[in-house]
């Protein structure tokens, strides 16, 4: 937003006029419609009646009420809000891709199948693993797929294992996914330095453990340096090592997760692979795994057979489908376009500069926003307001709202929960030094202004289309539609 526009927060339905139209369907075959009266709806749906221009102006104005990556620095930790290349959008919009029906005959789908096949091969190599599915529609959906694979794997071996170990710094999706599948979640407290406590892990891991789910780097932006000991403990117990790949941006092209003992992991295309977040999706995910888990992958997979690409429905050991059809292909096409734009070395630069940027922000701010970890961070840093701010009753939420007034989206706040008043900043590699300098200046200004006049900061934001919103009323008396 250049300046806060005069807000017109009327709903589309409140702009509706009976008899007004945007689009028509005049196909003469309508006259042949055959739906008996008793099967027809009694009253028309209450939808707005608007002209096309009404609709375009309404939603264009709404769009201007948003912060977005294109308009604002958006350092949301663990979300990897990097630049979304325009080329990816143009590639995915090619009609040859968009018009392809998911049940099209393989002979009509050779282009898309080849793309999926090539993308799969590249990602498998990138992770240092053996096989992949691109069917999951998001990160959490991938976790779900990964745990299903683990379950099927142990069932096939005749082993009953019903526990999933997660550290207390894990994303909420890890335990939620585990319980969705009927697993019991075993939480392990992190050590003071934020790392997984290997001794604790050894105490809890055993014949009941199916999987250790570990985010790498973890949500404190720290790499598990004792990774070899962790992997050894997992494998010694006969369990599987799952890497939550939400933070892969820190590692891409720099390490191969397979090298340090990961058995399966997920990818988030809307994070590491630059596909747009869309205001909350669509994303796409993948599970990349070792050979022994491959027979259980969801179907169909794409196989090359005598120069042709074919859909492979497996040998019956598959876990089945996690969604209809193939996957979020439109998102995969964007990710493939991104892969084409990077050589192996350039993929490594993504990790390199995401780490440099995060450490740079940390270095510029650590005197007034102390860092939870005393070490250098990977792609994100977790800070908190300093003592002079908390002494004035200032909280992380106030810092977040103060940033909005200064033209920056807030970082992720109050996560990870193990850090009091956490401010989790992930700049990503696509932000320039100048932007980071401006961000740091804004954070310093918030500090100085907040300490001098706490109330003004507690009342922030002052320049947004709305002020702080009453979330309690929203939950107590839900108003969910017009």
């Amino acid at each position, binding site marked *: 937003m250049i300046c806060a526009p005069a807000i017109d927060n009327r709903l589309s339905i409140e702009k509706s006029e009976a008899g007004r139209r945007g689009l028509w369907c005049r196909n003469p075959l309508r006259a042949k419609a055959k739906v008996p009266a008793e099967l027809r709806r009694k009253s028309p749906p209450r939808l707005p009646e608007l002209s096309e221009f009404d609709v375009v102006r309404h939603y264009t104005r709404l769009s*201007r*009420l948003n912060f977005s*990556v294109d308009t604002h620095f958006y350092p949301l930790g663990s979300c990897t809000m990097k630049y979304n290349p325009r080329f990816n959008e143009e590639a995915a919009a090619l009609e040859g891709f968009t018009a392809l*029906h998911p049940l099209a005959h393989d002979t009509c789908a050779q282009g898309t199948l080849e793309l999926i096949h090539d993308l799969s091969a590249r990602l498998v190599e990138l992770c240092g693993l053996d096989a992949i599915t691109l069917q999951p529609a998001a990160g959490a959906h991938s976790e779900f797929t990964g745990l299903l694979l683990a379950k099927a794997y142990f069932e096939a071996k005749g082993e009953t294992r019903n526990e999933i170990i997660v550290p207390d710094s894990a994303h909420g999706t890890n335990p939620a996914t585990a319980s969705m599948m009927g697993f019991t979640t075993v939480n392990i407290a992190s050590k003071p330095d934020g790392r997984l406590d290997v001794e604790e892990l050894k105490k809890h891991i055993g014949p009941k453990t199916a999987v250790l789910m570990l985010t790498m780097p973890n949500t404190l932006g720290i790499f598990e340096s004792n990774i070899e000991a962790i992997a050894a403990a997992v494998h010694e117990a006969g369990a599987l090592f799952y890497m939550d790949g939400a933070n892969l941006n820190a590692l891409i092209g720099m390490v191969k997760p397979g090298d340090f003992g990961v058995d399966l992991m997920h990818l988030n295309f809307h994070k590491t692979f630059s596909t747009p977040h*869309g205001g909350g999706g669509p994303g796409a995910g993948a599970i990349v795994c070792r050979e022994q888990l491959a027979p259980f992958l969801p179907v169909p997979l794409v196989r090359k057979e005598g120069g042709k690409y074919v859909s492979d429905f497996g040998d019956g050991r598959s876990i089945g489908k996690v969604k209809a059809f193939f996957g979020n292909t439109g998102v995969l096409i964007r990710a493939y*376009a991104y892969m084409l*734009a990077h050589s192996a070395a350039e*993929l490594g630069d*993504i990790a390199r500069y995401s780490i440099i940027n995060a450490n740079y922000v940390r270095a510029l701010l650590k005197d007034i926003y102390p860092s939870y970890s005393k070490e250098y961070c990977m792609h994100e840093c977790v800070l908190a307001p300093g003592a002079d701010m908390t002494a004035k009753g200032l909280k992380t939420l106030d810092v977040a709202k103060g940033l909005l007034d200064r033209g920056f989206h807030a970082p992720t706040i109050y996560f990870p929960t193990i850090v009091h008043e956490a401010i989790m900043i992930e700049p990503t590699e696509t932000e320039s030094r100048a932007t980071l300098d401006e961000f740091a200046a804004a954070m310093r200004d918030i500090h100085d202004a907040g300490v001098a006049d706490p109330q003004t900061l507690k009342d922030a934001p002052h320049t947004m289309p709305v002020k702080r919103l009453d979330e309690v009323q929203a939950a107590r008396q839900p108003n969910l539609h017009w």
Partner: protein
Amino acid sequence: MYIPHTKTDKEEMLKSIGVSSFEELVKQVPSKFLWPGFALPEESLDETQAAARMAQLAAGNKRPLSFLGGGAYERYTPAAVKAITSRTEFLTAYTPYQPEASQGTLQAIYEFQSTVSALYGMDCANASLYDGASSFAEAVRAAVRVTGRKKIVYCAGVNPQYMDTLRTYFAHSPEYSYVRIPMKDGVMDKAALPALLEGAACIAVQTPNFLGLIEDMSGVAETAKKAGALLVAAADPVSLGILTAPGEYGADFAVGEGQSLGLPLSYGGPYLGLFSCKKEHVRQMPGRITGMTKDKDGKRGFVLTLQAREQHIRRDKAASNICSNEALCALAATVYSALYGPEGLKELAEANSGAAAFAAERLGAIKGCSLKFKGPFFNEFVLSVPGKADALREKALARGVDIGLPLAPLFPELGETLLVCATETKTEADILRLETVVKEAI
């Protein structure tokens, strides 16, 4: 490469950090794992080269005149929908965690929830799920949570991919049982219902069903209620331009595949899971929900609400693990619905019905072909064909027409049949060409 740093930037930034080399920053990673070789291209493509590669792949897909349906439908995406969804203020934002800086996305989601509630005639809807199949599975899971029962009664006409996804969502656990309602003339045999429903969590129905037929839903909710079971209904949203809404026949949960609302086919996604329910089940809804509220000055505003159901708060006690949904697709569907309005959606639904009726009339009259079922259908129907359906399809494809989906792998009991679909994108001439090609292929 989308990295802005110059060599000087890098050096000065490392200096500010207080290190002399990047390697000092990653000492926490055991060095033996750093910088392995990757068998990946040593050169990236420039944009000109990448554009050529993508164009070549896109051209590798063939575009026959297609009569495929079966859960994904050929639609025209209006220019205004594309214009709005490519506004990068929508495209490049994320989940509205900071409501003051996300009122655009939040109000659009509220309007989406309102659109879905209106179309399905339900009390409330969420901010979307991944697709129709995952919405269906989540609705059945919710019914299981509400009733505490683990028996799922379902119509034989439910999309087989939805059933596959459901079984996967229950991780194939033997605790759950699935009872199929027998099919009679392509629709559920309602007479069989009362006996099957005992102890059931829900009856799961899809109408129009996978075979295109419209289920007669009168009395089904009442039968379910008598048995203490809930009604989960899946319906195509465009069909609801004319067909009875799930709310009108008493559904507890109503779901659908939102791809129909103007989203491209894109080989299966991204699509849009529509999820709605009666208000007593609102706290069982998975995923994000937006609510209207007021700011400190009393001005209207929107926030994510009822978050106590969600994974980032409840962790292992959450209603679902969903985090990202399909927000941009939800925006597209909302804009599409607003552009057409109630009258336009009715026209679209009629055009679907009319196009399919005309195709059925022409194909059903071909010697050796016949319509498998007599009941009313929406935009697709089952055609019995002489000889092997898949061989017939391949012959027709060689003539540039995809005449429909052979059903034998999914419904062997139907014999050699095709599921033929015609939406509003088809003209009379298209259907006459379909007729000609089917005749030639036979």
